[in-house]
């Protein structure tokens, strides 16, 4: 093959014969029609789960947290494990949309919309846990630094838990703005295609009067860059601050300076896995295989093997440092962690997070969709165990053996967790029905450079000599100028 002008390492980002119109058709049509049977079934089960979650939480608020299994020694159990797990999952969206935008990674266009939606829903799920794990949730607003008549009494700015409140609410706000600003042009597309009055009105309202002028686009691009700049440090800071909850403590197994980078890598790891889980299903059900290609999944898998390896190094470093410190508390904590009554959770974590993602070094497996799907779930099981291991297996056997205990969750705790799945998927199903799951405008932006049909078209040019090519290029430019002049 002649490869003078076209990179052979970059595979097309959009498969098939696509025109701008065809892109709009493919992505917007599911919104305009009735959802399929699968959508109704899935939505129904999500609602059931959500209701069970609401029931479980109501039960524990009504009777008290004694309905849970957490106790005097293990003060946090499934609640904070699930909090950290969901917030970790919520890292992928902003990483894809902000950091990959700044690095000009074109492949993000196929996955960023769904990933950002996932981020927002995951952060909403995460936020439930610190709220409902409070003994007196009705007084929870005291963590907000609001002017008040109670003294005035302010929160304790030394507390990492308070930093969490700020970190997560900031992250949620910025992610939501970022996501929404990207949606505006796509909403206007739906509005312009709308056949019913109600749809026209609602999407018209949602698109803030977008008309697609050059000025609109210019402002949109500027805003995207500003928000990307704002959210890039947030991707790193949110999980760093979550890790401070543990790192600033005096409990062996928590008191660790390695936590911030280790938590961030783990968050990206689990977030990307969750994106893969959702994308494999979404592309199949909404027939978007040409937009979310195997190449996209492979790119995600590469990041999974990278972050999985970072996490693995962190686990081993932790073990090494606990021995190297020669501190009896540290050494014992890790001994109990890997060989104590909770040994199974540690080894589940090690297997799922460190060993199995290494299979992604094999290109065939990276591009294998069923394998990617299974692995994305394995990774998230592993990451759940990581948080369980950190939270429960540090406290259950800490400094003073007289207070050691064991912890198992009770049904309201499990129900609460299932309920957040209900919340997550209810929101995701609504998103998949009413919002364009792929950023139409951004796909169109890369279509002519990275679309399969345009790339194939390059074969004609590849055989040309450099002079011919230059000549053709100049001619195009002239045409452009003429057109522009005519326009004015």
């Amino acid at each position, binding site marked *: 093959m002649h490869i003078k002008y076209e990179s052979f390492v970059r595979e097309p980002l959009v498969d098939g014969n696509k025109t701008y119109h065809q892109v709009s058709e493919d992505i917007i049509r599911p919104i305009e029609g009735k959802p399929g049977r699968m959508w109704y079934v899935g939505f129904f089960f999500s609602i059931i789960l959500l209701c069970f979650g609401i029931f479980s939480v109501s039960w524990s608020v009504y009777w008290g947290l004694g309905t849970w299994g957490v106790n*005097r020694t293990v*003060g946090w159990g499934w609640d904070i494990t699930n909090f950290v797990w969901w917030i970790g999952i919520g890292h992928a969206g902003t990483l894809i949309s902000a950091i990959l935008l700044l690095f000009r990674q074109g492949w993000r266009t196929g996955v960023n919309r769904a990933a950002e939606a996932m981020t927002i829903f995951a952060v909403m799920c995460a936020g439930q846990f610190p709220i409902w794990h*409070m*003994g007196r949730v009705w007084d929870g607003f005291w963590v907000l630094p609001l002017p008040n008549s109670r003294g005035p009494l302010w929160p*304790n700015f030394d507390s990492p838990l308070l930093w969490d409140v700020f970190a997560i609410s900031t992250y949620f706000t910025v992610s939501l703005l970022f996501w929404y600003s990207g949606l505006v042009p796509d909403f206007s597309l739906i509005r312009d295609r709308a056949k019913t009055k109600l749809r026209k009105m609602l999407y018209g309202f949602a698109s803030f009067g977008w008309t697609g002028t050059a000025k609109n686009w210019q402002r949109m691009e500027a805003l995207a860059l500003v928000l990307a700049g704002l959210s890039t440090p947030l991707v790193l800071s949110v999980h760093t601050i979550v890790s401070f909850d543990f790192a600033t403590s005096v409990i062996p197994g928590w008191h660790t300076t390695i936590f911030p980078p280790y938590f961030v890598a783990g968050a990206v790891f689990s977030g990307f896995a969750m994106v893969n889980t959702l994308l494999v299903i979404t592309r199949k059900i909404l027939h978007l295989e040409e937009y979310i290609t195997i190449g996209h999944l492979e790119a995600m898998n590469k990041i999974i093997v990278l972050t999985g390896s970072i996490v693995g190094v962190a686990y081993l470093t932790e073990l090494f440092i606990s021995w190297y410190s020669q501190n009896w*508390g540290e050494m014992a904590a890790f001994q109990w962690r890997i060989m104590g009554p909770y040994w199974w959770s540690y080894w589940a974590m090690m297997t799922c997070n460190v060993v199995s993602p290494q299979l992604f070094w094999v290109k065939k497996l990276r591009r294998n969709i069923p394998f990617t799907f299974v692995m994305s779930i394995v990774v998230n099981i592993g990451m759940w165990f990581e948080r369980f291991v950190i939270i429960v297996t540090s406290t259950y056997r800490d400094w*003073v053996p007289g*207070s050691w205990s064991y912890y198992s969750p009770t049904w309201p705790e499990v129900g609460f967790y299932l309920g957040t799945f209900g919340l997550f998927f209810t929101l995701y199903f609504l998103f998949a029905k009413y919002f364009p799951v792929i950023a139409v405008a951004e796909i169109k932006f890369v279509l002519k450079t990275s679309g399969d049909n345009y790339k194939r078209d390059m074969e004609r040019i590849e055989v040309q000599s450099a002079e011919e090519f230059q000549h053709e290029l100049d001619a195009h430019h002239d045409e452009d100028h003429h057109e522009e002049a005519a326009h004015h």
Partner: protein
Amino acid sequence: MFNGQTFESHHDVTIAGTNEFYEIAITQTHNSYEARPILHEFTLEEFEKDPKILLKERGNEIAEFAEIPWLEEGKEAETEKIVGPNTEEEYRINGTLYPNHPYEGIKWGMSIDLSTCIGCGACVVGCMAENNVSVVGKEHVMKSHEMHWIRIDRYFSGKIEEPDTIQTIFQPMLCQHCDNAPCENVCPVSATNHSTEGLNQMAYNRCIGTKYCANNCPYKVRHFNWMDWNGADAFADNQFEDYRRDDLNDDLTRMVLNPDVTVRSRGVMEKCSFCVQRLQEGKLAAKKAGRPVKDGEIRTACQQACPTDAITFGNVNDRGSEIAKLRKDEQMERTFYVLEHIHTLPNINYLAKIRNADEIKGIDEKKDDFLKYHI
């Protein structure tokens, strides 16, 4: 049959196994102290031979943090580290990056003697009666939800098969009222904070129940009101006046409570207050009499209940007080603080146990099954 006191009657009894399990609720599930330096015991012989043995052990843990190495060159060559009269104060100041907080008035402190503690549990009962500590019932004890502000950690060592070899040590464990308390800085709403007299205090009304303080307490002495133990503030129970569900809402039942101590509601953390109501009462009485508080005038409930006087309590800033004399002079060689090396700066010290025995078993894997088979 008359046994000298009462009449007893016997029936024919047969005992047969049922092959059923009966669950027993206990508050302590681990019986070995794992040879950890959270408590210290010595034989009389070894302690007489080297009375500074504990001061040396403590010196190895904290002395290097008591001095500022970059200011005192050549100090590192010193082979033996030992806790001297000023080490504690130097460790307090130099063991942290933060400025020292001086305590100029009263500074409450407690000393617990492990040699005299017999593990009877009177302190636990005394504390519960004084401080309206809730009784939670078997189901919740099994979930480790008990509320005891003071507990007695009981550790065994020796051969399980030979009961005569077993050595037992009791360590009453309660809030250590740390001057550098890990629980205080993590509370998002400052519900737990430090008094000018060195008390680690709880503002129940401010607590929102995140349980972060309990997690970060190295001694695990904080207890959360998991349920509405007394039926005092459940949404439902407040509605009834049928003398069945309204428990502590009726006047007669309320007489079981100490009126000087708040009853805690569901969802808040609680823990030992050093009987702050007694401290306040004592200070007020002294103030009205126009004199400072006298040593021994204020006694905590656990101290009062202790049949062996294992607990000493008082103002450590008062040089003539019993507690100050114990720590600085009379029992200095036996004094230690639990987990001193993490710089929590407890206001409770313990006195090491001196055994009239040939050997200490709890620190030797060969002599102690509890240590060997601890998993």
